[in-house]
């Protein structure tokens, strides 16, 4: 009986620790605009993450969604703009002034949230889900 209680307590502690560790924190991804290119060219983010664009060129640029969903507006040299990622932020974007500058935002599915508002998923399944969502470019 004592041994059973010990095993159950150990399992409970392990599950609690796993749940705490499994929380996926929101992240900030940085895109540098440098030499007329968005670097990196593809960002894979999750809803709730933040993407920050920094213009390192001496000329103005924008980061403008091709489907019209979001727009940084004019970013002067060394200017910055940040956007909290929503599900519908996914897609190609361009610089409105230099339409040959093209890049992509990919938005995966968040199975857990650092804000504690999403359902929890056992770690192996979360790892598989993150893999399928291609969430691997955090800066």
């Amino acid at each position, binding site marked *: 009986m004592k041994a059973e209680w010990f095993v159950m307590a150990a399992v409970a502690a392990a599950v609690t620790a796993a749940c705490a560790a499994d929380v996926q924190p929101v992240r900030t991804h940085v895109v540098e605009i440098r030499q007329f290119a968005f670097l990196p060219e593809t960002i894979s983010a999750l809803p709730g993450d933040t993407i920050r664009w920094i213009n390192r060129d001496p000329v103005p640029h924008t980061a403008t969604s091709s489907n019209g969903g979001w727009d940084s507006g004019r970013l002067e040299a060394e200017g910055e703009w940040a956007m909290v990622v929503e599900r519908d932020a996914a897609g190609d974007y361009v610089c409105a002034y230099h339409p*040959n500058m093209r890049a992509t935002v990919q938005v995966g599915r968040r199975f857990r949230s650092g804000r504690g508002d999403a359902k929890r998923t056992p770690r192996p399944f979360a790892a598989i889900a993150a893999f399928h969502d291609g969430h691997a470019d955090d800066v």
Partner: protein
Amino acid sequence: MGRRTFGLLSGAGLVVACLAVPATGRAQDLSDAQVAHVAVTANTIDADLAKLALERGRSSDVKAFARMMIDDHTGVNQKAAALAKKLNVTPVANDVSASLEKGAREARANLVKLTGAAFDRAYIAREVEYHAAVLGAIDDLLIPTTQNGELKELLKTVRPAVAAHLERARQIQQTVAQ
């Protein structure tokens, strides 16, 4: 200018500055102060011509391109001016910048006679030739001849802008030709 020659090629009523570097020559003729003057001049004359394009052009693509020229060349010149001040360098006029200015005056003289679609075609053709020539000058003269590391770095930073302008001008050239 030594053995370096800057000629003016005239074609279809347009004039662009053209660089010719002798095979035996090395790009050592321009001082950093002269390079700075060339860079500022090249930016200024293209921004000025873009203002004419906003007045006389018709195509929305051409006008957007002209706005881009004003923004970008002005931005680069601001950075160049800040760097010159930091380095305590006063840009010095030279044959290359004089050649660029002469070409710009002649190009403008031809363009002011045109309006609408004819202007669009001539302006974009000039921009294609001009940016191709400037790109060649950056690669073959300005970057190799520049001694100061920060000025050289600025030129390397500007190069993608000129290349992007050339690419965009070529795209628009296809549309205004139709």
